[in-house]
């Protein structure tokens, strides 16, 4: 091989799949409304059912453990983040606020802290599902 032949062409990596399977914004919005709905819209029904079961179970267990559905409080800046996390659960959160007799939970309950952790986790999981649905819709994830 001639060492003075100049730089050899570098093989290009295969292009990422860019085929769209649905509107990214619609997928993300549906994913927020109810866990798994975005994946169902993207024609992934099995994954959608599993996600719906996991996030809904987490949320309902949080309510059962008398956790708190956070709202912003004056002088408590961390409650803004907690509110953002809980509102990530979409309709589950809104429905629970309407139906629940005590959306602030029961701080005297021995399971109060666990309930809060479950509720916050359910909301954050659903926010991740929104991002996942968006990535799938734009072809960034197989």
């Amino acid at each position, binding site marked *: 091989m001639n060492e003075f032949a100049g730089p050899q062409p570098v093989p290009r990596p295969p292009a990422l799949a860019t085929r769209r399977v649905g509107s990214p914004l619609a997928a993300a919005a549906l994913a927020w409304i109810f866990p798994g709905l975005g994946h169902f819209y993207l024609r992934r029904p099995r994954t959608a059912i*599993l996600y719906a079961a996991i996030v809904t*179970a987490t949320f309902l267990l949080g309510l*059962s453990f008398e956790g708190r559905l956070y709202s912003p409080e004056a002088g408590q800046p961390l409650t803004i983040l907690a509110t953002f996390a809980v509102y990530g659960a979409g309709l589950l959160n809104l429905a629970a606020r309407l139906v629940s007799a005590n959306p602030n939970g*029961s701080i005297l309950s*021995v399971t109060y802290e*666990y309930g809060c952790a479950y509720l916050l*986790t359910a909301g954050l999981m659903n926010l991740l599902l929104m991002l996942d649905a968006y990535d799938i819709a734009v072809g960034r994830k197989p």
Partner: protein
Amino acid sequence: MKPAGSLIPVDHFLIMTIYALLISLFFALLWRNERRERVALFVKLFLALVVGALAVAWLMYPFPS
């Protein structure tokens, strides 16, 4: 132990284990695409959460609040 208003009898370890189970399932589904990889990640995450929590609890045992 059974929290008021709850139908589920629970204890601290059970609540933690259910939490670890749900988290592990969720991230195994989210982060992996192949079935075998998902099972492997699920087992790793679940063991890390449960064993890690027990290890931290054991380390904290000599330091009561």
